[in-house]
């Protein structure tokens, strides 16, 4: 069975996460060898997944942890049980 581009796009996320079957992975790999559009879509999607996971993209607000633990200390003090 030969798969088309739409079929590849439908499985890109699962492919990146290693959640496709061995058979489907082989089909997709075969398609990617000759389809530069799907290769670019896969590469760009995978690249984005790596970039957004970088700790520099979403950081806790400055002082978040200090304020949280200070508030918690007040609460622990109040709790006399």
């Amino acid at each position, binding site marked *: 069975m030969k798969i088309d581009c739409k079929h590849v796009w439908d499985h890109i*996320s699962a492919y990146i996460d290693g959640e496709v079957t061995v058979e489907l992975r082989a089909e997709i790999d075969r398609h990617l060898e000759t389809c530069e559009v799907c290769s*670019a879509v896969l590469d760009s999607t995978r*690249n*984005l997944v790596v970039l957004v996971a970088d700790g520099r993209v979403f950081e806790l607000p400055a002082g978040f942890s200090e304020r949280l633990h200070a508030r918690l200390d007040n609460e*622990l003090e109040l709790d006399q049980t």
Partner: protein
Amino acid sequence: MKASNPEFEAECIRRILAGEKQLFHELIRPCERAIYFLLFSLLKNETDAEDAAQETVIKVYLNLHLFRGDAQFRTWVLSIARNEGLGRLRKLATRREDSIEAESEEHAGDFTPAILTSWREIPSEALERQELGALLRKAIEGLPAIYRNVVLLRDIEEMDVRETAAALGITEGAVKVRLHRARALLQRELAPKLKPFAPRRNGWFGRGK
């Protein structure tokens, strides 16, 4: 993200309940980021997310005796955070169109990717440029809430499918479908905008003239 350690958690909880209250700081510390980003994804506002995160942590402390150990501690904590966030959203619902429960999979939209014929890898070092981080944040914050949550927990907090499903109260299948759609939406939105961040053939990204 730190892997959770059930033995450490169970021992901590036992000692906290026996009176070593200060240990709660150490118990909750590994969960802080996930609590905040889950709430940020729901509330879309740093101040509200921080306030809700503090309330969540206090509720966790006050209800610690109810934790049964049949779920992972962090999953339990995140379900408390989610309830806190949803409670606040309900209060705001009259002036928000983005109410999470009102959003269904129905108006799912078009998930066709941006069509490219080549892609030059953008290295993580490119994040030293503030504009790149800002573009990524804006795109994620602009996703519909049901997709934004899943991206934040799966791709940013790097939680597994099972824990994400438990924290959000949805099935594992829904996590996978939503993550797929979220990534497709991000690719379509971002891929055309990110090309300038790819390294130049001669020299480093964007630094040379």
